[in-house]
């Protein structure tokens, strides 16, 4: 048997597994919204650029639903939250 087949097979197979994560064997659970401020004890995932953007737009990160990998809050999420807040304010009481 041409042994090299195995090599060809091995790498793409791994790559594939990478692209499509193995079927979850337990219910995947979304991490709770990252804590603000990046305190050491805080779990979750905040990035400085998102934090800055949030503070510029007065967005409370704990109220933002992250759409990035594993629930990471993306810039887009912050901008959308800011838009919603603006719209809500503009809307008649």
């Amino acid at each position: 048997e041409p042994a090299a087949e195995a090599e060809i097979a091995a790498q793409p197979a791994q790559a594939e597994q990478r692209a499509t994560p193995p079927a979850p064997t337990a219910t995947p659970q979304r991490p709770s919204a990252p804590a603000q401020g990046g305190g050491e004890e805080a779990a979750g995932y905040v990035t400085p650029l998102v934090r800055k953007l949030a503070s510029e737009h007065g967005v409370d990160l704990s109220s933002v639903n992250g759409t990035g990998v594993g629930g990471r809050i993306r810039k887009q999420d912050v901008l959308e939250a800011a838009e919603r807040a603006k719209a809500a304010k503009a809307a008649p009481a």
Partner: protein
Amino acid sequence: MSEPNDATFDIVILGGGSGGYAAALRAAQLNLSVALVEKGKLGGTCLHNGCIPTKALLHAAEIADQTRESEQFGVKAELVGIDMAAVNSYKDGVVARLYKGLQGLVGGAKNITFVAGAGKLVGKNVVEVDGKRYTGRNVVLASGSYAKSLPGLEIDGERVITSDHALTLDRVPASAIVLGGGVIGVEFASVWKSFGVDVTIIEALPRLVAAEDEESSKALERAFRKRKINFKVGKPFEKVEKTENGVKVTIAGGETVEAELLLVAVGRGPNTANLGYEEQGVKMDRGYVLTDERLRTSVPNVYAVGDIVPGLQLAHRGFQQGIFVAEEIAGQNPAVIDEAGIPRVTYSDPELASVGLTEAKAKEQYGADKVKTYNYNLGGNGKSQILKTAGFVKLVRVEDGPVVGVHMVGARVGELVGEAQLIYNWEAYPAEVAQLVHAHPTQNEALGEAHLALAGKPLHAHA
């Protein structure tokens, strides 16, 4: 939290490599009690047979090359030769020092019980070592990987060897064939060429380091051609025969290559056979342990980390996963790891470094019309000119969006991946990096220049 007085631990970890020991150290910090089972040496593959010894060889290789080419820089020197015994004692010295440091860290953690011996999962929460049972409220599988071979290709440790043997070679061979043009293969090819070996790489896939961006492969191939490292890509291996003084390899189409030895570097297989995983109900696929994104296996409270989990086989992925699992068990609810955000370095000469998506992957994910790239040639980078290295920094971005891939080729670019890692993981836009003008003259300046150009304001570059 609890003490192992009833031989029950918060966590029993099977394997003391990058993934296992990182989990143990982080768990201990979080006041969890740990049994860390290791049959070989604490530190595992990376420290003893992987990352560290190979990078020591690569540095000795760099020194050999610089000495050989020193006249270009005005330094008159003569390369007398490679003293392999001395190279090995340098390499072993580095490993020994780091090993001692690691032993100090693990030994100094009061709530880690180090268990020397081969362990087996004999219950869903029990690891047995030499007849003694260690029960854990949680178990972490971290048994690592081994150098694979191909069917019918027998490793004899003399003429047909793996990286394990290559790392303890007591001589510089006259010639070598490297089977496999992945990271490990090109690193050894690079070392050997610098040591004066006539090297040929054989790779079944159409390019070297095929997991990298296509432009990176092309640049590496160009550099290797210049270094007179032979390679044959796109042609699978067919067979190897012993000759009087070495080996003869036949590849598809009938072409043969002869050399003193053959290094088999066709990948690493998960070290999971006969360890009781399947018997205890852990779901597996071709020997790999399947987990969800929180590294849980199919058995409750049993986690897996490192090379046995499908994905990138890298030491720092093991560290990150080990830390993740410890924090998860401690109830800290850590953020899921983005596999694409893990930096990748190939330490050959030239080095390759990347993080995020290749151009091809980004186009697949976002659509070809939504992806923009910029390639900054190191020809415009002063420090790279000083080092006389060639290469580039290539950025992949989403239109009106962040940088989603960074790909670099050139001497020493591995060190630039730390910055690239922040850019990718923090989803920076080119303009956010561009406003920070980098130190002159550095190589990291090339990363800055690439962002300046992609932000529409090139400095030392044409638009």
